[in-house]
């Protein structure tokens, strides 16, 4: 995929970061507002697709590291599973952090309120974990599919030379 014009690349350089911030906002506020790990992760993963379209595949492949993405994806899934397993003394997926006062442990007032960010226990933790997993996973899919297309194109060019 060839890089697009200077105008497209400049707009991408400015506005791609707003998409990342918006996706991170959706992930972090998953327990307060609509959205969560899956939705916000998909928004953040659009960043890689944006870079691929605007800057072309060669520069993108120089920027991303597949091993790092793979590690982040596995870490996200393991945190999610671990947060579920930690409450096993009561039940699987028991919310052991809620209302304990520590991390994500605040008590929310009953009825409608403006929202407490440090609340909801493992729900916020799992949102972050799933967000990490979805970001890394969808980015990996984009990068590897592009690599696969390039492999096919290279083979076709080789067969033309023969």
């Amino acid at each position, binding site marked *: 995929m060839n890089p697009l014009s200077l105008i497209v690349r400049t707009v991408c350089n400015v506005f791609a970061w707003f998409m990342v911030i918006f996706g991170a906002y959706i992930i972090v506020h998953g327990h307060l507002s609509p959205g*969560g790990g899956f939705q916000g992760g998909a928004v953040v993963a659009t960043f890689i697709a944006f870079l691929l379209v605007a800057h072309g595949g060669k520069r993108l492949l120089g920027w991303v590291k597949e091993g790092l993405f793979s590690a982040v994806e596995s870490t996200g899934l393991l945190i999610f599973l671990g947060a579920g397993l930690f409450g096993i003394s009561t039940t699987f997926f028991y919310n052991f952090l809620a209302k304990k006062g520590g991390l994500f442990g605040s008590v929310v007032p009953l009825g409608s309120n403006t929202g407490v960010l440090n609340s*909801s*226990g493992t*729900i916020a933790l799992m949102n972050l974990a799933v967000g990490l997993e979805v970001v890394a996973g*969808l980015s990996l899919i984009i990068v590897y599919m592009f690599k696969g297309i390039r492999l096919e194109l290279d083979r076709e060019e080789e067969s033309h030379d023969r």
Partner: protein
Amino acid sequence: MRGWRIFYLLGLMVMCGLFFGALQDIHPFGEPVEPAMDDYFLERAQEERAVNNVVTSIVFDYRGFDTLGEAAVLFTAVTSVVALFRKGGHER
């Protein structure tokens, strides 16, 4: 070719009839038939799990095992895509 078209039209008419028949029995919006479980979640999510977003409390807490399955599905999808498109996977 022409006979099949009549069959398709007949099938469409039967489906439309079934849909409109089902629409006669639909309950009004906002009045579920069995609201016991909905009320349980709506009343207890804030005091039990200290969370404002009841939908998230169901997805990640009360039905967390289901979300674990979703995350596993995504992981499997990524794994299969990487296995399919990885370098050197093509036979020469």
